């Protein structure tokens, strides 16, 4: 679809959502697929990146030719009508030796009373020695009483020597989220996950990570930083399974405030004598001395908290 077409079909609310989830103020350069209120609002393919609508179920296939370097794919999803419920299946086929960035994000504006719900099921097939950076941002807004719900599932299959970095961010406005991420890694493959999460009000967020290190020399580093405010609830579950000579690390670092609740359940399973696995979990309120230091610089307690949290989630 030509760029002009996209501009015409997007309203102001959708543009705000787009800016929040994809840092985009205009249509992106490179390949993209914009889904708005359940239908296609824009698509661009390149010589190396093809995007094809699935025939049997809602969603797309993103096919990236082997050896594609320094290209990006943006696939934002925008929901600005109240009461939409959708499940979308997106499959990414990333060829050998690629080096690419994928930006997925979902923004919900709910100004009505019905719940808006988006469940994205993403499967990644990462070819040998390919490098992928995947950024996923979730954002909600609108003053309607209807819930803003997102339940993303990510399944990753990594071939020999593949490298993938996932940056998953949910800072504002999502009432309920259950995120499932599963990965299996072949020899020398490496996975890095950085999750950043903030919940407030009565929000609920649960993350489940399951990583199978199947090949010798594979590594995984799963780190979640979160802030739980007011009466919100968070759960962090991570299970790293070492089936080979591999190394894995999971970490959950949470700041708890007000009457919030945080559960961290990191788990490790070693099925191989050379599997080196570590988990760390820490939950606590903001350190008093950090607040005091910033207050001695002239910040109020509220301003100090804000600085500490935004730094922590940076």
């Amino acid at each position, binding site marked *: 679809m030509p760029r002009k077409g996209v501009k015409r079909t997007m309203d102001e609310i959708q543009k705000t959502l787009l800016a929040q989830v994809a840092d985009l103020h205009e249509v992106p350069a490179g390949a993209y697929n914009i889904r708005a209120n359940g239908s296609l609002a824009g698509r661009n393919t390149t010589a190396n990146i093809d995007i094809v609508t699935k025939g049997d179920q809602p969603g797309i296939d993103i096919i990236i030719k082997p050896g594609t370097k320094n290209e990006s794919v943006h696939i934002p999803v925008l929901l600005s009508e109240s009461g939409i419920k959708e499940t979308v299946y997106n499959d990414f086929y990333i060829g050998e030796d690629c080096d690419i960035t994928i930006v997925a994000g979902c923004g919900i504006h709910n100004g009505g009373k019905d719940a808006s719900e988006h469940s994205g099921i993403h499967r990644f097939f990462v070819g040998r020695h390919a490098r992928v950076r995947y950024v996923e941002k979730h954002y909600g807004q609108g003053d309607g009483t209807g819930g803003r719900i997102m339940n993303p599932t990510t399944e990753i299959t990594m071939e020999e020597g593949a490298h993938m970095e996932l940056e998953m961010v949910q800072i504002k406005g999502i009432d309920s989220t259950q995120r499932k991420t599963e990965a299996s890694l072949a020899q020398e493959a490496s996975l890095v996950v950085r999750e950043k999460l903030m919940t407030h009000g009565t929000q609920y967020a649960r993350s489940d990570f399951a990583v199978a290190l199947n090949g010798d020399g594979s590594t995984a580093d799963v780190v979640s*930083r979160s802030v739980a405010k007011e009466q919100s609830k968070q759960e962090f579950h991570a299970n790293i399974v070492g089936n080979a000579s591999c190394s894995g690390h999971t970490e959950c*670092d949470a700041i708890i405030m007000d009457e919030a609740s945080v559960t961290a359940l990191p788990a490790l399973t070693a099925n191989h004598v050379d599997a080196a696995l570590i988990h760390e979990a820490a939950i606590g309120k903001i*350190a008093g*001395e*950090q607040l*005091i*230091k*910033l*207050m*001695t*610089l*002239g*910040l*109020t*307690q509220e301003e100090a908290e804000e*600085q*500490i949290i*935004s*730094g*922590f*989630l*940076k």
Partner: protein
Amino acid sequence: MLELRNVSYEVEGDKGDNKEILSHINFVFDKRFTAITGPNGGGKSTLAKLIAGIITPTEGTILFNGEDITGMSITDRAKAGISYAFQQPVRFKGITVKDLITLAAGKKLSTAEACGFLSEVGLCARDYISREVNASLSGGECKRIEIAMIMARQTELSVFDEPEAGIDLWSFQNLIQVFERMYEKINGNIIIISHQERILNIADEIVVIAGGQVTQSGRREEILPKLLNTPNAATNCQVLEQKEAGRERKTE
């Protein structure tokens, strides 16, 4: 000008009894550069925390430029013009050196301006400006950043708690110069808590705090030779010195 009137600070002891950490301190900080020294555990940092408002006295009054600030919050004191460089700098996650310097300055700074404060304390700005002030910084680096923050604040009263601690020998002379430059520029008062003769050596006035009390105070020329001739500051006859300190205050 900062004045302490009959300031005491007590905490609850292990056996539920009261433990007096500072006892009836009377002192006026009106010199450009006052150094506080004295044995470990004497109460120096406690005094600094009382000045910054981190703790409040159980008795007595603190006056800043004649205004009673005893009940004032940390934030309001900071805004009124009091700065405090901690003995043990605080570390953060995700907050960078530039963030802290900017917050300290209280206004947007260009990278060049922020770097200026770092260079002043002998840190190569380029290497540090975007580093997180987290556990990866060395102790000495943290101390320097702590000092740079106070430089950036440019307040009327600056309290430094053992700024030289952890600063390598090589840089020590530079640190002295930092304070000398500050001395030239400041339109107010600097208080430095220190165990170092070379820092005491540039003070106008020296205060000795031991056992929660001011045991000696006076002009540097007068106090420093006495200190240097005292084999052990902690066990030197405190009763005598207290009397002496009292007498000096009266004659001021």
